[in-house]
């Protein structure tokens, strides 16, 4: 088994990472997935959450990204993350996430339930919540 594999993280806006890694932990729809090099083919949708990977360099740097929705495809030689939105950990903004959560909450409560797109709002709310969670978690580590 090879000890490193290629990881490629792209969002609709930009390419966030492309390089060799030793391990990746992704927020799959059914729970977090830890993937090591040489994993069998797997494909899953992603929920909002933290995507972590350990780079295959000298100091084994661990990097965190925030992803909201998308698809993860694993091939033995290549892991691809197609995120709907993705942010680097340092670009996360607690205030903005809080505002987004508040907006989504207001929209969920305030409006007429008939003309409400529950699914979209719920996704938005989850994304904001996951961002805030991640900010707290990273904050503790620092």
């Amino acid at each position, binding site marked *: 088994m090879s000890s490193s594999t290629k990881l490629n993280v792209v969002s609709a806006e930009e390419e966030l990472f492309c390089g060799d890694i030793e391990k990746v932990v992704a927020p799959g729809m059914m729970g977090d997935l830890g993937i090591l090099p040489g994993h069998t083919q797997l*494909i*899953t*949708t992603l929920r909002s959450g933290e995507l972590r990977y350990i780079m295959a360099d000298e100091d084994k740097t661990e990097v965190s990204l925030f992803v909201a929705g998308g*698809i993860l495809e694993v091939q033995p030689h290549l892991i691809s993350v197609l995120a709907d939105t993705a942010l680097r950990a340092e670009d996360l903004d607690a205030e903005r996430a809080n505002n987004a959560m508040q907006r989504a909450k207001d929209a969920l409560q305030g409006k007429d339930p008939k003309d409400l797109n529950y699914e979209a709002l719920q996704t938005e709310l989850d994304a904001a919540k996951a961002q805030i969670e991640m900010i707290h978690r990273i904050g503790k580590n620092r």
Partner: protein
Amino acid sequence: MAGVKEIRTQIESIQSTRKITKAMEMVAAAKMRRAKERMNASRPYADKMHEVVSHVASGHLEYQHSFTQQRENVKRVGYIVISSDRGLCGGLNTNLFKQAYQSIADWREKDVEVDIAVFGNKAISAFKKYGLVAEKGNLGDRPAMDDLIGTIKVMLDAYRDGKIDRLFLVENQFINSMTQKPRVTQLIPVVASTDEKLSHHWDYIYEPESKEVIDALMQRYIESLIYQGIVENIACEMSARMVAMKASTDNAGKIIDELKLVYNRVRQAAITQEISEIVAGAAAVS
């Protein structure tokens, strides 16, 4: 020969036109830079998506998505045409529509009916006479995915329900700032190159269900292709406009030079005439 005054007003009006075209050229140049950046930024996603879909196409999957299956009997096809919102961009839209008309006419010849959905104001007015199933204009310079989904959904639903058997995309391809090429590509059934390395028998592990994941993937794939097409079209529009406006600025300069020559000649002729009249008058008096 026209009077001196007429020629002067003509020169003035062409000068102000040149000012406008010059300004439009500069605006288009600035916008093109940004449009190109956006196009390049979203390209990795579209490329990666294509790669994953080609993996999917080369595997032996338990669930075959309808977008990957060829339908033998083609009775009706769908077209999505992407144009710019505004004109004054040279032959960009005209060339694109010509290609689209040609392609549509080919299907009609084979007794296949055609449904058309369009993006961009120019395409709306060009294809109105064919009857549009969906349209979306006023995209602006930074289209958001949310604005596009409605129109795309109409076509995808039509395919799923079996109303159309193929779906094509007509768009401009950005080759470089000087060249844009219209092209017609087939969106559905998905034409994906199969990866040779993955030709042995395998299937994915799915989370949650194969149908759900592949549905989500295919939906995103088509959306990303169309989004990429629209972003690319904006870059095309801006660079075509820049080139067209540069040409008209140059032309205006040329016409002004010519008119100035005529103006001076007329002015000189008038002066000469006046002098000879005075001289003749003086000669008659003495």
